[in-house]
Every structure is written in structure tokens, then in C-alpha cells.
């Protein structure tokens, strides 16, 4: 583990809001996304998808498909003979049941939208005509669509090998004597909290273009994925190819938010079809498929019980977590990702002395789930924050005060969950957030509103998020394929310009700018001399891609290390050429100079010329060329960003609408490499969190047919629903990353649902109603307000 401290004092770019280098391309329409790539002889694919939620595919007749003008081929599972995509955990059978996800379903289908055949045509219109002509006959089985149905004693089985429709059932923690603590506690509270199924919904749908490169003997796949190296690994495994025979390239990507950090079956099928046909094949997912047959997220149920002392200190937390993972396990994370995340991290920012938790992943006949920005933390933070709100009410304490009495204030702190938290600003962020709302007069306005019969509510959420999970953290989950490290390479050319290659991949997070800031500072280069290369499996040996807020914390640390190594080489070369001790050299503004004689030195250009073009001048023992590689891993429990969110809402009588009047986020992600980028990540995350709290939900009818097939049914918020958001930054540098940066990708999504729900409940306080499930829709609020008005009338003096 490195204990290198944050960026050196000579740093000029890290910490600056330098303009994004991605922007000119994207603003002028010169970005290149998967569907922007057209190649000669290219064919187009679409998928025939299951029309029943659960059933046996008794016949699949594609003869009429093949007659459709423009259709070139149509393949079933039997035609392509691909291995299933199988992720796994090293856990005993009573804890975990491994299940495979076939690339194309063969005889059994498990959700509406599951692909059963791929149709390839000369143009995308013909491919769509083709899938319409498929004749599939199903022996329909009763679907399992809810948690209760899945866990019912006589429930039909989604996977025959998984009794009770349970794919994971673990009890990670059980403090001895916890029942006695509950029995003796002066105050106990109970919370039942459910979160709706959501779609992460990147604006660019999934897609892939696969073509065989005969000269390189490689299947080249352009695809929009957050994990190109893992797509390569799985594609080779499914097709029985050497891994070197697959190259995965990620061009510009229009968002991912997690659902593109798992391997999709469609991209594998497209690759296999291209190999079979000897022609390039492109597949672009349409919005209906993205809403119904892509990976979904979030549907979870938290049953929490907590014990408190009379002063509001939490004594124990007892949790039962059930996650509805849908029909299949995702690669590489498996169905374990959500319940294991929740189980191991639920105490969060609070000093919880006793903890018991059971976490389950259940399977249902709905589209499978993938990690979505936040991963279980939006849900457990919401449930835990409800616990504190409920306890505050029971004990007559202020909701902020009860948090203040319980948040961790001494660091490092090792929790009851065996996780060691690195320094953060849990209390400071809470205090600043409350002070901001108080100073702006929101508490006064709330009191005035109450007198006028209006319903204003103020709500908070307080959380930390582990970012930059290293190998150790994922290994603890017992994953068979363990993410964690990342690699970086830097290469200086003969003109002194630098190319940085990473294993992470930006899908909106501005890596081209932030990674360049890190490398440029390390080498004393101007920003324009540095370029980032990402998303090509041929350019770097391996990478774990972009998820879990890991890119800057881990990938950025690898970049700084690689650049540091190159800096050492430049200094050694200078020392040799000028015949001075290595220690006397320093990197400074595009050159290496002598520490005590600033006039004397060699520019990067001069050094690069020697390294490549005048190797005859190289000092003895110096290798030609100027490249360096490095890896980085957070070997401890990782690093923890933290934040407090504060929200003011008004509930509108007559409509039940929730209007957000004020939103303040106080965040601490360590050193902010680029504050503008951090703010963008916060705001975007908060918007998705608000969406989950108030608007978005994927629903199914009683037969398991998806009810959200377009944006008319899936209510994604617009500029009219998302308020302006003020962000205050605190900075507690990470001691375990090379840059002092923690992670900033997910926090907004984590904090928003709890804060919004708490604000809604604060506004509903006079009604006595507390809502614990999201999304909170106007009809529930309307009902509560009508009830309150009714009671008010009854109790009013005649």
C-alpha cells in the first residue's frame, strides 16, 4: 500500500477547473459512438425475444424470417452453439447457487425480452421486419414476479437448481448477545422499506459492431461497455477462442451508469454471427429493448430493527435484506453484488456497536439486474436514515441532533462490520449542511408555511461510500473473478508529447481531462502535451474498467505512478547526459533541470530525441525509448467519500405533487482533481437519485409483461422536475490513493433518495403518516394530505 500524499506543491493542474478536452469534439458532432461507425459490407442484427415471462420454447420456426427481403441469416442457440455466460462466487451450496445465462435461450425462457434468436439483414429496417416473421411457440409456465411469490413455499422455480428461488442467502454478521440488547433497550424502532425497480437508462442504448480482421486473425468488436477487457474474456470463453483472437474497442460512450459494466448476451451473439457470416455485423439496441430486455436495477426490501438508548445512541441494528435480482446473474459480479454490498456496509457512517444481517438474492421472471450507480447504498442508506428519523420521533430528538450523536468522528474507525474507515468529514458535512439551510431561513419559512396550512418539509441524509474497491475488498466477497487493480501506461514520443493509456473508460466522467491533469502535473508538462487513450484491449494488457467510483481513485493512481516512473527515467537520462547526480535533477515545466541551477537542464523534447533518435548518445546502462507502466490497487478496505444532502420540499394540496424548493449537497471526495467535473458528477447523480425517490419505476403486469416500453410509461425526470443544486466541497485527502482523490461517481445517487424521502415525511409529519417506499408517487401523498385535512376539520373548534 502506498502512503504517498496528495499531489505535490508544484502541481498546477490537479485541483483546477480546467476546461474539458472532450467538449470540442462532442459539441461539434464529431464524437464517434458505436452507431456512428459504418463499414463496408456491414449487416444489421436484431433479436427475436421471448414473449412470455416463463415458459418452454417448444418450437421456433425461422423459415419465414429467412424469406423476408433483405434478411441474410437467422440463428438460434442450436445454430451458434455458444457457452453460457457464467459468473460465480466461492461459497457453499447452502449460501449460493450458480446459474448460467445462455447467450440465446434454447428451450426455457425466463423473462419477456429474453433473446431466443438473432436475425441479420442488409439494413436495420429489414432486420426488424425479420424478427416480426419469427414463429415461436411456448408452453407457458406460471411466472414468479414478486418477492412474496418467489419465497412462497410452493412457488414455481425460475431455475430448477435453486430451491425457494433463492440464489444467495448469507448471514455475514451476528453480534453475540444482540437479542438481549434489543430486549433491554429503552427504545426500539422498526422500518420496512422497499425500493422500486429502476432502469439506469443511459441515453445511448447498448450496441456492438463486430468484424473479423483476417490479417490480425482477430474478431474486432466495437461496443459500448464499461468493461472492455471482461467482454473480451467472456467473448473468448463463450466462443472457444484464444483471448488474443478478440479485440474489444470502446469508442465514445453515451453514458453507462453501471448497466454497461456487465457483459451482455447480445454483444456475444453479434460477435458469433459476424464470425459465422464473414461480414461485419452491427446491433444497436432500440429503446423498447433497453427498457424491457436490458439490465435493470434497485428492487430491494429492507426489514430493519434498531435499538437505541434514551439519549438516542444506537445500540444495535438487525437487518433482513431481500434483493429481487430478476432472471439471471450478471457477469462478473453475480447476484451477490447487491445483498453482499448491503450486508457488509449497512452501518455506514454510524457507530453501530451490535449488528446482525441476513442478505438474500432472489430470482424472478423479470429482466435481470446489474449494478446501477450506487449499488445497494441508495437503498440501505434510505432504510438506515429512516431508522434514525423514526428513533428521533420516538425519543423527541431533533433529526439532525440524533445523527450528530451517532456519526463516526474518530478515524481510522473499524466498524462492527470489520471495515476500517479512513478519515472523512461526516460530522462537518452534517453541520455545514444544516447551517446552510438554517442561514438561508428555511426553518423559519417552514414554520410560516405551517401557519398558512402549507406543507414544507426539510430532510437530510448522511452517508459515506466506499470508493475505489481494491482486489482485497472484492476477494472478501468470494468472487471467482476478482476485480480491483488497474494498469496505466505512459509513452513519450520524439516530440515530447505524452500518451497515457488506462484500463478505465470514460462514459461521461471526463477522464480525457482529469487523467491528463494528473499525468501532466507529475511530469511538469502542459496539458495539451498529454493525451489519454482508453477503451482498447490491444493497447493495455488488462483493465477493470469503470464502475464503483474507481477510475480516479485507482486508475488515476496508476496513471500517477506510471508518470512518476517515466519522470524518474527522464531524470536519470538527464543526470547521465549532464553528468550530474540523479538527486540534483527536478522535473519542471516541460524539462528536467538542476535543482540548484535552474538555467541548466534538458527539455523533454531534447531528452525524447536522444531516447529514440540518438541512441548513440545514451549513457551506458540506459534503455532507449520513453515508456513506463504501473499498476495500482487499494489493498486496505479502500477509501471512503462522504456527504450530507439537505432538501426542502413542498407538498401541493390538490395534486400531491412534490416540489423541491432547495437542494444542498456538502460532499467530500478527497482531492477533487477537477472541481467542475466533481460537481457535474454530483448533480447528475442527485438527479438520478431524485428520479428514484419520486418518479421512476419499471412495472410488470400480472403475466409478467413489462408495462414500461417507452418514455411515455417510464417517467424519467426532465429539466422541469430537477431543481438547481448547490454543492459545497470539503476536502479530506485520501491517504491510500496516489492523488489524494477518493471517488465521486456515485455519491449523488446514494444520498438523494433518503434526503428526499425524509423531507417528504417531514412535510407529512402533521398527518402522522410516514412513507417508507420509493418511488413516492403523488397519489400516496394526496391520500395522506386529504387524511390530514379531514382530521384537521374534525379537530377544529366549532
Amino acid at each position, binding site marked *: 500500500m502506498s502512503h504517498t500524499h496528495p499531489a505535490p506543491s508544484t502541481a498546477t493542474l490537479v485541483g483546477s477547473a480546467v476546461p474539458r478536452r472532450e467538449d470540442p469534439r462532442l459539441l461539434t458532432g464529431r464524437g464517434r459512438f458505436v452507431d456512428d461507425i459504418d463499414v463496408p459490407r456491414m449487416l444489421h442484427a436484431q433479436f427475436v425475444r421471448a414473449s412470455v415471462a416463463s415458459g418452454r420454447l417448444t418450437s421456433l420456426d425461422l423459415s419465414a424470417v429467412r424469406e423476408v427481403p433483405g434478411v441474410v441469416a437467422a440463428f438460434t442457440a442450436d445454430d451458434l452453439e455458444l457457452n453460457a455466460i457464467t459468473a460465480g462466487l466461492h461459497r457453499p451450496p447452502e449460501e449460493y447457487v450458480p446459474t448460467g445465462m445462455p447467450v440465446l435461450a434454447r428451450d426455457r425462457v425466463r423473462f419477456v425480452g429474453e433473446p431466443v434468436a438473432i436475425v441479420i439483414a442488409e439494413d436495420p429496417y429489414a432486420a426488424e421486419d425479420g424478427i416480426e416473421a419469427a414463429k415461436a411457440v411456448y408452453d407457458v409456465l406460471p411466472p414468479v414476479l414478486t418477492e412474496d411469490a418467489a419465497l412462497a413455499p410452493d412457488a414455481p422455480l425460475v431455475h430448477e437448481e435453486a430451491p425457494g428461488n433463492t440464489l444467495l442467502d448469507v448471514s455475514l454478521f451476528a453480534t453475540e448477545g444482540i437479542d438481549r440488547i434489543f430486549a433491554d433497550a429503552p427504545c426500539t424502532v422498526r422500518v420496512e422499506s422497499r425500493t422500486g425497480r429502476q432502469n439506469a437508462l443511459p*441515453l445511448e442504448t447498448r450496441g456492438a459492431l463486430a468484424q473479423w480482421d483476417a490479417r490480425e486473425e482477430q474478431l474486432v468488436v466495437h461496443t459500448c461497455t464499461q468493461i472492455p477487457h471482461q467482454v473480451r474474456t467472456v467473448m473468448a470463453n463463450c466462443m472457444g477462442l484464444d483471448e488474443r483472437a478478440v479485440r474489444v474497442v470502446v469508442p465514445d460512450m453515451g453514458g453507462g451508469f453501471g448497466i454497461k459494466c456487465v457483459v451482455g448476451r447480445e454483444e456475444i451473439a453479434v460477435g458469433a454471427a459476424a464470425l459465422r457470416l464473414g461480414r461485419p455485423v452491427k446491433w444497436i439496441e432500440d429503446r423498447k429493448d433497453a427498457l424491457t430486455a436490458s439490465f435493470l436495477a434497485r428492487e430491494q426490501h429492507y426489514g430493519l430493527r434498531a435499538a437505541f438508548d434514551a439519549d438516542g445512541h444506537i445500540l444495535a441494528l438487525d437487518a433482513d435484506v431481500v434483493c429481487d435480482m430478476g432472471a439471471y446473474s450478471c457477469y462478473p459480479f453475480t447476484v451477490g453484488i447487491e445483498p453482499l454490498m448491503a450486508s457488509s456496509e449497512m452501518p455506514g457512517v454510524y457507530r453501530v456497536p451490535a449488528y446482525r444481517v441476513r442478505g438474500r438474492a432472489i430470482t424472478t421472471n423479470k429482466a435481470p439486474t446489474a449494478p446501477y450507480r450506487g449499488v445497494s447504498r441508495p437503498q440501505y442508506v434510505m432504510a438506515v436514515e429512516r431508522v434514525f428519523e423514526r428513533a428521533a420521533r420516538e425519543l423527541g430528538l431533533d433529526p439532525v441532533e440524533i445523527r450528530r450523536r451517532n456519526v463516526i468522528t474518530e478515524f481510522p474507525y473499524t466498524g462492527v462490520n470489520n471495515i476500517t474507515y479512513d478519515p472523512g468529514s461526516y460530522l462537518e458535512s452534517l453541520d455545514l449542511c444544516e447551517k446552510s439551510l438554517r442561514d438561508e431561513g428555511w426553518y423559519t419559512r417552514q414554520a410560516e408555511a405551517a401557519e398558512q396550512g402549507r406543507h414544507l418539509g426539510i430532510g437530510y441524509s448522511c452517508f459515506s461510500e466506499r470508493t475505489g474497491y481494491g482486489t482485497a475488498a472484492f476477494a472478501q466477497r468470494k468472487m471467482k473473478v476478482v476485480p480491483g487493480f488497474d494498469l496505466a501506461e505512459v509513452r513519450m514520443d520524439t516530440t515530447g508529447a505524452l500518451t497515457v493509456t488506462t484500463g478505465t473508460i470514460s462514459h461521461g466522467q471526463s477522464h480525457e481531462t482529469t487523467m491528463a491533469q494528473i499525468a501532466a502535473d507529475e511530469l511538469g508538462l502542459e496539458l495539451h502535451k498529454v493525451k489519454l487513450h482508453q477503451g482498447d484491449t490491444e493497447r493495455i494488457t488488462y483493465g477493470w474498467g469503470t464502475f464503483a467510483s474507481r477510475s480516479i481513485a485507482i486508475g488515476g493512481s496508476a496513471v500517477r505512478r506510471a508518470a512518476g516512473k517515466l519522470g524518474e527515467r527522464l531524470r536519470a537520462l538527464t543526470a547521465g547526459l549532464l553528468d550530474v547526480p540523479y538527486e540534483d535533477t527536478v522535473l519542471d515545466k516541460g524539462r528536467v533541470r538542476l535543482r540548484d541551477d535552474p538555467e541548466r537542464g534538458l527539455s523533454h523534447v531534447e531528452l525524447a530525441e536522444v531516447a529514440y533518435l540518438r541512441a548513440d548518445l545514451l549513457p551506458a546502462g540506459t534503455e532507449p525509448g520513453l515508456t513506463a507502466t504501473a499498476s495500482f490497487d487499494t489493498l486496505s478496505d479502500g477509501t471512503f467519500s462522504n456527504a450530507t444532502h439537505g432538501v426542502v420540499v413542498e407538498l401541493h394540496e390538490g395534486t400531491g405533487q412534490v416540489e423541491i424548493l432547495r437542494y444542498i449537497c456538502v460532499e467530500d471526495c478527497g482531492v477533487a482533481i477537477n472541481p467542475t467535473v466533481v460537481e457535474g458528477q454530483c448533480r*447528475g447523480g442527485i438527479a438520478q437519485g431524485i428520479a428514484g425517490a419520486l418518479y421512476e419505476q419499471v412495472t410488470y403486469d400480472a403475466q409478467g409483461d413489462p408495462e414500461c416500453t*417507452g418514455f411515455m410509461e417510464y417517467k424519467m425526470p426532465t429539466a422541469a422536475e430537477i431543481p438547481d443544486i448547490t454543492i459545497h466541497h470539503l476536502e479530506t485527502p485520501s491517504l491510500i490513493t496516489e492523488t489524494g482523490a477518493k471517488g465521486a461517481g456515485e455519491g449523488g445517487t446514494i444520498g438523494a433518495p433518503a434526503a428526499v424521502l425524509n423531507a417528504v415525511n417531514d412535510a407529512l409529519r402533521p398527518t402522522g403518516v410516514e412513507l417508507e417506499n420509493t418511488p413516492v408517487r403523488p397519489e400516496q401523498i394526496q391520500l395522506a394530505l386529504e387524511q390530514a385535512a379531514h382530521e384537521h376539520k374534525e379537530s377544529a373548534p366549532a
Partner: protein
Amino acid sequence: MSSNTTDHQLVSLTVNGTEREVVLDSRRTLADTLRHDLGLTGTHLACEHGICGACTVLVDGRPARSCLMFAVQAEGKQVRTVESLSDDGRLSDLQQAFADHHGLQCGFCTPGFLMLAEGFLAENPDAGRKEIREAVSSNLCRCTGYQTIVDAVEHCAAARRGHQEGNVQ
């Protein structure tokens, strides 16, 4: 475009100031024609049912969803795409405003927002923040939380007004 089930038509339209003639299926959308027949891939498709607005272009100066128009409906019309906004690779004031205010992250919805704003500001140069927010709410963005898009359009509008007033003086 080799599908034999539909008839082909010769369509003449003006795209970014240049007259173009294309032979295409009558069912081909304007978006697909711009992107794949004319190579103007700046215009993006994200829902293909007219909600998200990523495919917004200007048709005779007004914002239109190119996924909801057949190319044949653009016969004789003036179409402007995102590629028309910048001059010789230099960002227009609107594009620069988006860059200055971090009004984009992944950039996929951005061309649609730019063309929406370009059309909106041409018709409503005096629009205030509230009206801008309302106009902008007809397109979807998943990255920014919208605030910085509203900021960008508002600042561009203010700068344009300032510029005009400056000219008058």
C-alpha cells in the same frame, strides 16, 4: 436500403446550406438519412419515439424530431444539424457556453440540446431562465441534472442580447 418491400423515392433537400439529392425508401427516417446516407452522425438517436429529443434538428429554422419525420417529408426543406453550428472547427457562442458551463458529460444528448436551444433562442431571444428551463425540458439528459444546460443557454442568450445592444450603441 436494399429492402425490396418498399418503394424508393428521389428526395431533394437542403442540408446545412448544401442541396442534396438522395434515393431512399419512403419509410426511411430523416434521422437515418442524415446519419447514414449523408454521413452527418452528429445527430443522435436515443428513443426513436419522439420523447428524448437527442435527434433534434432544425427544419426550416424550427426544432424538429428527426426520428419522427420521414426523409421524404423533408423534400424541399432546409435542414440544419449540429454540424452547421461551428465555423471551421471553432465553437459557436452557444457551443462555447455549453463548454464553459459543463453543460455536457457523455455528450450523447448534446447535439439535440444544442439544436433545440439554437431554434428556441432564434424565436425567443428575450427568454428568461424559467422559460429556458421549460423549453429545455422537452429533451432528456441523463448525466448533468440539467442545471448546467439551463445555465449555458441562459448565458448564451444574455451574451447575445448584450452583443446586440452593443451594436445598437
